[in-house]
């Protein structure tokens, strides 16, 4: 199986380890993430003002290119997923807007591509039982908090990947990998997102809430599906540790790194060294490595 894949600008640079671990995991399970021949940045935000059509031309261009390579498109970054999926819905359901946007990008694209998150591919196309069967290094005993953030789930009507208030897809994957998923209160709350640019205080507070909430619920590890979440959580780590009595920090990794780990990929290939937090002590403690 070969699935057209859109890495997005961040996975091509900042979050290389997210991208590579996913591609390797895919081939270990038996399918290929085939990078689009031509792609551009999706714009990293879905405009909330519906009249702002020009902002949809970048993602529309990506989708239109994807349409030329197949009927599905998969992404890893939650933000790309959000932008592409919602743009696609506009193009599919709104004739007038479709005409205008197609005019901008000089293409004839009708929203027919099925935009999938990598998690959806694993769940619906591959099946978690098949993933489970491919596990060689179960993450046994690791209490793992899956951090969904906002963009993967909301708004529900557009995203539809899972129940927006009580999602399970991540936890089910973690179970398949042999880990012990921990549902923690803040797993669907925001990390602070783009406020990283000008409001470190808020980001530290929100990301701190996420991490302390996870640890408070027993998590020893957090997995993410968004480079910005990853960045905000990791970046805030030290400040939260110093300001929160009793909190000593928690490693944060991409869920694909956890996946690669469980599938038995060589540790060196997973890019843990690029993470700010160090997951190795935990892995050693649990006897995984």
């Amino acid at each position, binding site marked *: 199986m070969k699935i057209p894949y859109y890495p997005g600008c961040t996975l091509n640079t900042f979050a290389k380890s997210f991208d590579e671990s996913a591609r390797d995991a895919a081939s270990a399970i038996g399918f290929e993430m085939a990078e689009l021949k031509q792609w551009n940045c999706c714009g990293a935000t879905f405009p909330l003002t519906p009249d702002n059509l020009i902002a949809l031309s970048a993602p529309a261009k990506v989708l239109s290119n994807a349409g030329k390579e197949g009927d599905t498109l998969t992404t890893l970054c939650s933000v790309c997923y959000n932008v592409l999926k919602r743009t696609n819905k506009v193009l599919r359901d709104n004739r007038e807007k479709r005409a205008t946007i197609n005019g901008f990008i000089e293409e004839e694209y009708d929203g027919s591509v099925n935009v999938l998150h990598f998690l959806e591919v694993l769940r619906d196309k591959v099946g978690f039982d098949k993933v489970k069967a491919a596990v060689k290094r179960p993450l046994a005993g690791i209490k793992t908090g899956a951090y969904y953030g906002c963009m993967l789930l909301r708004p529900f009507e557009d995203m539809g990947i899972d*129940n*927006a*208030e*009580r999602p399970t897809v991540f936890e089910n994957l973690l179970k398949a990998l042999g880990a012990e998923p921990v549902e923690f*209160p803040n797993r669907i709350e925001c990390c602070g997102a783009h406020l990283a640019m000008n409001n470190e205080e808020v980001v530290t507070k929100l990301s701190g809430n996420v991490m302390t909430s996870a640890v*408070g*619920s027993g998590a020893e590890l957090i997995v993410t599906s968004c480079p910005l979440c990853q960045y905000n959580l990791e970046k805030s780590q030290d400040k939260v540790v110093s300001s929160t009595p009793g909190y000593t920090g928690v490693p944060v990794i991409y869920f694909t790194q956890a996946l690669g780990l469980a599938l038995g990929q060589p540790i060196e290939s997973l890019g843990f060294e690029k993470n700010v937090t160090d997951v190795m002590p935990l892995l050693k403690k649990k006897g995984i490595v």
Partner: protein
Amino acid sequence: MPRIGVFVCQCGNNIAATVDTKKVAEEMKKLPGVVYTCDYKFMCSSPGQDMLRQAIKENKLDGLIVSACSPHMHEKTFRKAAEAAGLNPYQCEITNIREQCSWVHHDTTKAVGTVKSIDLTRMTIERLKKNRPLKKIKIPVKKRALVIGGGIAGIQAALDIADGGREVILVEKEPSIGGNMARLSETFPTMDCSQCILTPKMVEAELNENITLLTYSEVEKVDGYIGNFTVQIKRKSKFVDEERCTGCGECIEKCPFKTESAFELGLAKRKVIYTPFPQSVPNVPVIDAPNCPKIQKDKCGACAIVCGPKCIDFKMEDKIVTEEVGAIVVATGYQLMPNERFGEYGYGRIKDVISGMQFERLASSSGPTGGEIRRPSDGKVPQNVVFIQCVGSRDEKKGVSYCSKVCCMYTAKHTMLYKHKVHDGQSYVFYMDIRSGGKRYEEFVRKAIEHDDAMYLRGRVSRVYEKDGKVIVQGADTLSGSQVEIEADMVVLATAIVSREGADTLAQKLGIGYDKYKFYNEYHPKLRPVETVTAGIFLAGTCMGPMDIPESVAQGSAAASKVLALFSADEMAREPITAGVNKTTCNACWDCVTACPYSAIERESVKDRQGNIVKWLARVNEGVCQGCGVCVAACRSKSVDLRGYTDEQVFAAINSF
């Protein structure tokens, strides 16, 4: 040639001031078929009516016109007078020259009024020429009623009809009557114990000679029309012979298996052979067949062994009984919206998030905790309880747009019950508005706040989650403009009242209407609140929409009085304004069938001598037809007509315009 008389009324000066009534009478005399005319001061007075009767007899009139006030005023008077003189009452027509002429055209030269009166009277005369004598429709009425649903509304209706001396069959789908009220602890606004006021009524319903209780039963099929319904009722097998069972309870005692109690809403378990609650009426247990190992795999059988009168029969089967009744009262009540829909409130996941009805069970002295407020997770007495109102109600996006009407009140009640039972506890109520319209209702809510220390917070809760054994409630207090967080021990959701599952299927069986939320439609929300558009079928209680006990009871009584009024005569007389089908031209297109708002038109087959169907025809059921005439306009082959408003009559009027 017809022999028509025209009587023009002066109404004192009311008409005569602007209409030359004499001239009108004279002009009419010139029309063919008019043999007698006159004008008179007060046609409706006794001398006026005498004169009319006299003239009919003397002139051998076969039709008459009274040009006077609106037919809404005196049509009945004059038709009665005509009948007294031996004429068919429907051969009398009214021309409205007062409300439509003299009173609205103030020209004292009488020019305008006279011309218009002449026109109007002429049109009525031409119409009258096409009239046919009509007979009032008489429908025999079976004086027995069926009540569907044994909640408080249904019980009240049944008792009132029975007290009026008529037989009632009360059908209830559960093993006991009582409905939702049986679950309540104490009831607003008076705080009497629900069981204390309900149980006597339930027992009364059981003992009343005029009431036949059919519990564990459901209506399968309804045929017929007002006065003459035939109803098939499925009596689900109880596996216990009701006649012989003494209600000793030995079987329940000895049954070794337990399962979730639906009555206790997941807060307790019950035996496989059970009565829903101790005061059940009738006090006869039923076996929950899917959970009984004897019935499923022929293991156990303990209950049958201990039963003294030997009334347990594991082979008992469902039965269908047929009943003939003249009227039906539907009182099937409500249920609560499944809270699982509200993921953000953690219902179904967080054990200590419960529904208002579950709180009733916790507060009820016959409930699973014996009336002590203990939270489900660990049985601890909660010190901080958060009540969230409007859960699912007034929520267009994920719930229903309407207000559930009773939850403001019962939440206030809950805070009181809580305070009375947990003196040092603190309650918090998140509300959007407090709806306490009703006698002593507002005072009740204020008492909860001022006397029983409920902390009311104006705002909605955004999220509820668990942390360290607490239930954290995160919401807003819009009055102070702040985000608030409460570390609660228990959260109670005032979930929306919704229609019963299957309410639509029952409505279809009965041929009554329902709204988009599947609440039944009343005939007129203000003026005919307990009737449906289908004559002979009445409504009571929460099957129509959210309401409290006082209203449900009032409706039960109102429906009963409607039934008793219907039963007060042996026959029901109906205006003969009904549709009829011309059998020779009807081509069975069924356009009329779909158009009729009352489902009054049936599909009838015409058979030859061998019994083969040779033809299909539309047939109007006169007992059901309300005479709207929609079918007439719908029929493309002009095969239906409406008596009293036939095409011929209307065209005659138009043609003489």
